[in-house]
């Protein structure tokens, strides 16, 4: 009998051990570290709330990174997700030929990985002879030559990665290419579950396409939509590899490509201040927790 009582504990022991050692202990350590300044893990000094004080009152890079990520998130929310939904609706139509092929084409970029995307877009955005700049320059130059009163200022010759204001558009374009098909798949799955009966009933009742979209499709895909929005928000806040490789570890000119996680990485693993990095990490965690709560509230059917 004694063995039977022990058995459940033995079964959960492997998981519990790993969970305690690799999740709970580091988590508690990071709480303690957030109140310290360190030089790598060797030297540490207790500094109280100084890390948070620095974070909120002095650290310009952190607030630049927050602003950057808000812009990037807005790009994801208002450009990428509507485009993904539009694509999903298009590829959900029965009259589109080779739908499977197109779905694969749009989904394919997610398979290649962020590092590859960063390298490819680095070449595309290359100053002076990158293909995007060549196209923009050629096209706007042609317009300038042939269209009367076309302003000279609209002839683009963009140093994408070296010009502060173009770093974020470059990132948004690269991530659009990568993630639009990925998000499209979620929307596509949701659209295939929209009740045909309801749609037909709305049509019989005289609802036009736009009304059907607003009053039938959107409510039906709302749970998935909210989930995709949350995924995009979390992905945006956690953004690291793409700007690190495409723009540069320091966030490029004016730190316009710097994200909070890149800043955390630089503080913790380049400068060795794991304490300050922990403070940044906890702030990001609190923000994400808040976002998740809002999402839960929005997704709760009771709020309809």
């Amino acid at each position, binding site marked *: 009998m004694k063995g039977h009582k022990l058995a459940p504990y033995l079964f959960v022991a492997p998981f519990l051990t790993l969970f305690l050692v690799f999740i709970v202990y580091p988590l508690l350590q990071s709480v303690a570290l957030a109140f310290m*300044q360190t030089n790598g893990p060797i030297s540490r000094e207790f500094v109280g709330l100084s890390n948070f004080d620095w974070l909120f009152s002095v650290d310009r890079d952190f607030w630049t990174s927050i602003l950057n990520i808000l812009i990037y998130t807005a790009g994801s929310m208002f450009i990428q997700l509507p485009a993904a939904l539009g694509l999903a609706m298009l590829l959900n139509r029965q009259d589109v030929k080779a739908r499977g092929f197109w779905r694969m084409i749009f989904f394919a970029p997610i398979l290649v990985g962020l590092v590859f995307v960063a390298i490819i877009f680095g070449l595309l955005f290359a100053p*002076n002879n990158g293909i995007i700049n060549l196209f923009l320059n050629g096209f706007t130059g042609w317009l300038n030559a042939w269209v009367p009163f076309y302003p000279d200022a609209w002839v683009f010759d963009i*140093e994408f990665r070296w010009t502060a204001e173009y770093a974020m558009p470059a990132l948004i374009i690269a991530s659009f290419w990568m993630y639009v098909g990925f998000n499209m798949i979620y929307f596509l799955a949701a659209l295939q579950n929209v009740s045909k009966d309801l749609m037909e009933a709305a049509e019989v009742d005289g609802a036009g396409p736009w009304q059907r979209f607003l009053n039938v499709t959107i409510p039906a895909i709302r749970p998935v939509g909210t989930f995709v929005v949350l995924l995009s928000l979390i992905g945006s806040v956690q953004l690291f590899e793409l700007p690190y490789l495409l723009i540069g570890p320091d966030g490029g*000119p004016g730190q316009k490509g710097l994200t909070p996680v890149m800043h955390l990485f630089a503080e913790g693993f*380049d400068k060795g201040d794991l304490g300050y990095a922990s403070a940044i990490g906890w702030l990001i965690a609190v923000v994400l927790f808040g976002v998740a709560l809002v999402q839960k509230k929005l997704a709760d059917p009771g709020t309809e």
Partner: protein
Amino acid sequence: MGPPPGPIDSPFPSEPVHKPRSSALAVSPPDDPKKHTPLSAAGSGWRPLDTMSLGSWIIVAIAVVSSVIVLALPVPDRPGLEFWTFARNHSKMYAPLSERWNRRVEETGEGELMNLYQLEFTALERRTLNGFWAGTPLADLIEIEGGSFYKFVTGPLEDVGFVDLTDLLHDEGIYETLNAPSLTAWTNRGRVFGLPHDVHPVLLAYRADIVEDELGIDVSTIQTWDDFARVMSAAKADFDGDGRIDRYPLSFWFNDVGALEVLMLQAGGGTFDADDNIIVASEANARVLATAVSWCFGEDRIAIDAPEFDAGGNQLKLDGRVVCAMMPDWLAGIWKSDLPQLGGKIKLMPLPAWEPGGRRTSVRGGTMLGIPRATVEAGEFEDAWAFAKYLYLAEEVARELFLTANIISPVKSYWDRPFYHEPDPYFSGQPSGTLYIDQAPHVPPRTSHPFRVVATTEIGRAANSLRNYADARGVYDVESLLPEARRLLAEAQEQVLKRMERNVFLQIETAGGETDNADTDADAGGSS
């Protein structure tokens, strides 16, 4: 493969059984025989395909076989010491030297064999930091690049993971044989943590076929950067007649902080002086910053961004869309390897000075060889040190260094050796070694201050702000930009100082009176 036969001695009836959905032993009707699988195993023995699909079994088989192969493969037993480098050209150069060293060790039985590994730059840096911080295994000798050295000296001196070589260098008389500015980059709080690999003087490379043959410019008339901007403006060209400039005189971009630092050091500025005083807001820096923006924008623009180690940048050079580039000795080696098409079309000249009679060179890049403290604890220091001296101080290595990578050795006594002074076909027959050596003693001393990168980041931020200021007002001449450049650099310096004040470890050392000034010979890097 057909459906599995029905169980012979199954305890369950073979006719359809309607069980509740929640039952774990729910049985599908016989018209769907594939769903019988859980029960069949209970009857007539275990069938592999009842447990997992064929695909899953293949995956398991591959996993098992590959694991066995990996475990069975013998791990090469490499006796001796380990040496990490990050640079492809270094690795290529060191390989035969290591082999020679190892042959000598095997023949004489003295010393330790050396195993050379080339690691990717970031991987080497990260593994080294991990080794110092967390005690993970490290090589016995590690090459560190100048841009990342600060990461190893951010804390108290006793936390620095490399062996302090200062006394050893003095005791063995090595210190005096080395070019003084080469040591400053690896000196922190007066202590030297690595053997310098190089000097890295910077010259100006120009397309002789364009400048001399096509444009007929006499480069000896160019003494200052103002001369350069005036004379070389003739190299600007619109190839396709669209009214837009396609060829610019200089490869440079205003917010490339590495290039900015080269110019600031040449002008007598930089981030920290030899006494570790912050000089971000110096007048020299302000003038360089204003000039940099004036070079890249406005009517008198002379620069184009043609980055190194970049396919796009290299194409611009090959296409003749950029005429001149600031070229440290190591970059000359890279161009020879990566841009052989330019061989015979390039020439070198000293950098234009910031004022008449001023310094005609600067410095960029650099590598040191350090020995981790763990090597001392393992009792291997003597052997590691012997190899370090062989690799960095031997004449045969200096020769290889120059012939394979175009790098000048910091050992001054070798500078008169013939191999440095032979005509170089890549540089149109000029003796490139001579040109670099002529400038080597005048290379400005550099700081290895832990906040150097913070300072250069702030300078980069100031550069972007100055560009915005220029754009907003439509003014791009140096004199108009200077006041704003001064203001922005003062702001940048304040930011760096705030960060420095926050660092409790450096404050503790200062309070303890341990912060010595860098033991550097600034005079040696004085202007020419």
